[in-house]
């Protein structure tokens, strides 16, 4: 490793805990959220430095972008309740718990064998058998397809749960402020561009970093910006939206279960068609993941409201 690499990694390694500390100790909630978004981007950079491009993409799109937007849109609702700092005992308790988990994780990491290839070799040797050419896609959708199948189900359930607890005042159909001129023209550029990028990522997913989760979160980001800017009202639960929500899981279950009928194992895709099948599955998953993530957003943020909510906080 050259001096430049050392410097770069050193700066990243030093920045991460510093920013994390900033998030925890920020004077106000909006500062904390801003720093949290920055933390997401720096950790995405760190993942990219570790050659984990897939993780970096997801971290940037979901961990930083979507979560940041979600936190910012939740800010007006939660801020009035957080005026009072929590008690010292409670803070100490949470701190001790988190410190314990961190130490435990650190010790576990240190006790791992220093250089084990893990399952990487096994995956690369058997990649022919899966429908994908990229190891990560092969693992996600074939070798460990079971995990992904359940993850998609969890996402769907989470989306339903969000709808169940949404406040009536945030129900869909509301529109935010009128969009400013430059913002509107930017969206005209952004929406088609993100659709192309998402399509590219799904296609790339079969042989390079990319895939349904990354593409879905980019599409979702596009949908979220349309909602937050008030260009489009929040999603209504029309038949089409419901179909899009379950499409990914339905296709996955059908593909996973079909081999059972012919006496094979669950998720044992038929050999010659494994490639096209996995790609079709990725497409369906992209649509569903995008729509599910968008449903997490309650629509355009409420504008001037704090006085009404102030009654809650003593």
């Amino acid at each position: 490793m050259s001096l430049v690499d050392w410097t770069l990694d050193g700066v990243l390694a030093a920045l991460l805990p510093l920013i994390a500390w900033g998030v925890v100790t920020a004077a106000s909630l909006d500062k904390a959220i801003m720093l949290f978004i920055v933390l997401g981007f720096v950790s995405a950079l760190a993942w990219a430095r570790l050659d984990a491009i897939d993780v970096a993409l997801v971290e940037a799109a979901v961990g930083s972008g979507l979560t940041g937007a979600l936190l910012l849109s939740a800010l007006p609702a939660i801020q009035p309740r957080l005026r009072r700092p929590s008690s010292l005992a409670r803070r100490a308790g949470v701190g001790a718990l988190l410190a314990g988990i961190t130490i435990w994780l650190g010790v576990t990491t240190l006790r791992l064998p220093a250089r084990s290839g893990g399952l990487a070799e096994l995956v690369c040797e058997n990649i022919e058998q899966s429908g994908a050419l990229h190891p990560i896609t092969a693992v996600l959708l074939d070798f460990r397809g079971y995990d992904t199948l359940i993850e998609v189900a969890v996402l769907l359930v989470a989306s339903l749960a969000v709808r169940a607890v949404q406040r009536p005042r945030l129900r869909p159909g509301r529109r935010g402020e009128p969009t400013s001129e430059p913002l509107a023209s930017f969206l005209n550029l952004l929406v088609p561009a993100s659709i192309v990028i998402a399509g590219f990522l799904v296609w790339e997913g079969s042989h390079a970093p990319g895939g349904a989760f990354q593409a879905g979160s980019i599409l979702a980001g596009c949908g979220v910006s349309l909602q937050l800017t008030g260009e489009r009202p929040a999603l209504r639960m029309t038949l089409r939206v419901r179909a899009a929500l379950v499409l990914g899981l339905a296709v996955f279950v059908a593909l996973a279960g079909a081999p059972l009928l012919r006496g094979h194992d669950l998720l044992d895709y038929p050999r010659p068609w494994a490639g096209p099948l996995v790609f079709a599955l990725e497409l369906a998953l992209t649509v569903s993941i995008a729509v599910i993530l968008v449903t997490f957003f309650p629509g355009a943020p409420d504008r001037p409201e704090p006085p009404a909510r102030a009654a809650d906080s003593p």
Partner: protein
Amino acid sequence: MTLQELAAAALLFAGAFFFLAGAIGLLRFPDPCTRIHALTKADNLGLGFVVLGLAVEAPSVVLVAKLGVIWVLVLVSSSLSSQLIMGRAQARAPRTDPRGPT
């Protein structure tokens, strides 16, 4: 050091200079208008020089094109976000800047 490497290094340093100047400006300038000016300057010129410097060393034309796309995307988003931030800042405190639109 070849001429190519020298040119790349010079361009990268120029980019780093604008980023540094932008960061200092963001911290030291007094009001939103001048701060936004410092930030967008870093985005436009700083990143522009960095992209140029990397393009000089890029192994393929495709990579140069990708770098160009990155630059354009950042340009578009930085000019938009500066617009939005300034719009909000002026709506909040219309008389922050005496030279501003009246």
